């Protein structure tokens, strides 16, 4: 009997002391949390992709609440999320353009040749590390799908030996761009449809030898453009999406048909 009483008293006392200690330190070490931070975190998509440049949605919400990040800083959420965040923070959200990934290569099995049967690890990064090019082109898509395996939205897939992005599913997080060992994937504004679909920096004749759909750096597009938006650097055409008006004249005249027309 005596043991039970002593045990109860001692354990209860320990429990009381511990509880009191918790309450005391809860008060003493209380950290002010900005309630707007929690509210902003609530409306962010929450897939922690890091495309905003912060270490996940929690860090982004903290930065927005402190005013260190713009309310439209989330490229995944786009305009709907920016409007909601703007309402919480009491500022007008400027229009934020939806961005999508774009594979700058057209080298499918029809236009470029396979070097042979690759039997190694089915991963682009492994193949490139081992110095193996699946196709003749040194710059083109390897086609083993490293981008496919990292995509959280299943928006990118390999079709006929070249990676293709589904722009409807793509949220523009940029994980595929980081995964691509050839650096072929670029995050571009979704409404700018005129894009150069090649990354080959070799001179024209070399490109022609390895791929029938490659940019030969002829600069006809530069001459066509009335807005000074297309330039050829390192034997490859670049489009300045800020200046481009989507007129499509460069795409019309491109001899290799490597610039996409506006309606596609």
């Amino acid at each position, binding site marked *: 009997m005596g043991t039970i009483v*002593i045990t109860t008293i001692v*354990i209860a006392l320990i429990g009381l002391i511990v509880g009191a*200690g918790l309450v005391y*330190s809860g008060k*003493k*070490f209380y*950290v002010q949390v900005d309630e707007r931070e929690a509210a902003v975190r609530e409306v962010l998509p929450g897939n922690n992709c890091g495309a905003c440049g912060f270490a996940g949605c929690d860090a982004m919400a903290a930065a927005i609440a402190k005013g260190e990040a713009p309310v439209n800083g989330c490229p995944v959420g786009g305009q709907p999320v920016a409007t909601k965040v703007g309402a919480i923070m009491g500022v007008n959200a400027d229009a934020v353009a939806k961005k999508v990934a774009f594979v700058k290569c057209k080298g499918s099995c029809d236009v470029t040749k396979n070097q042979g049967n690759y039997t190694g*690890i*089915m991963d682009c990064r492994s193949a490139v590390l081992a110095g193996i090019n699946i196709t003749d082109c040194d710059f083109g898509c390897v086609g083993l799908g490293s981008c496919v395996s990292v995509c959280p939205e299943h928006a990118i897939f390999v079709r006929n030996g070249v990676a293709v992005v589904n722009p409807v599913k793509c949220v523009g997080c940029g994980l595929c761009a980081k995964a691509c060992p050839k650096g072929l994937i670029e995050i571009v504004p979704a409404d700018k449809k005129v894009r150069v679909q090649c990354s080959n920096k070799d001179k024209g004749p070399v490109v022609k030898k390895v791929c029938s759909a490659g940019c030969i750096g002829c600069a006809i597009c530069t001459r066509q453009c009335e807005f000074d938006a297309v330039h050829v650097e390192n034997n490859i055409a670049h489009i300045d999406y800020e200046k481009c008006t989507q007129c499509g004249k460069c795409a019309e005249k491109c001899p290799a048909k490597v610039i996409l027309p506006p309606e596609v």
Partner: protein
Amino acid sequence: MKSLILIIISGALINNVVLNQFLGICSFLGVSKQMKASASLGGAVIFVITIASAVANLLYDLVLEPFGLEFMKTIVFILVIAALVQIVEMFLKKNSPAIYKSLGIFLPLITTNCAVLGVALTNVQNGYNFIQSVLSGFGTAVGFTIAIVLLASIRSRIREKDLPEPLRGAPIVLISAALMSIAFMGFSGLNI
């Protein structure tokens, strides 16, 4: 002095908490996907186990033994360790956000880790005094960190390999852990 060093080595290698005593397996398997996270977890475990074994020892010597309540040690240790980790977490959050950011997310995970309780109980079983308990706790936690960092580096290499389909994921991790465990058995032959 020699016996104190022996306690650390014994806790870290010979009686490795994960690979020889099979405690703390949950976080050992769960958080060993990435090297960085597992190293942070190891740091947090060292921190918590060292403090917990100190407090548990004081509690046992000053409260439980005088009242003759040794049989309640498991319950009391659970209670006190859980509260202690909570308080430490609050303290870190307020006073050093930098440490909180790197270790903080793991603290709630460790609160209920059986390795923490296991060390406290083993110390009592071995009749360690205060200094011996703290060192034994520290050594054990270092052993946990060694084990989890080793497994994380093995897993980061396995990920690149072309494994047979049935072995992918959990099976190969368990096989690796078992091989590590067998390797660590070699330490029991240490003649010290």
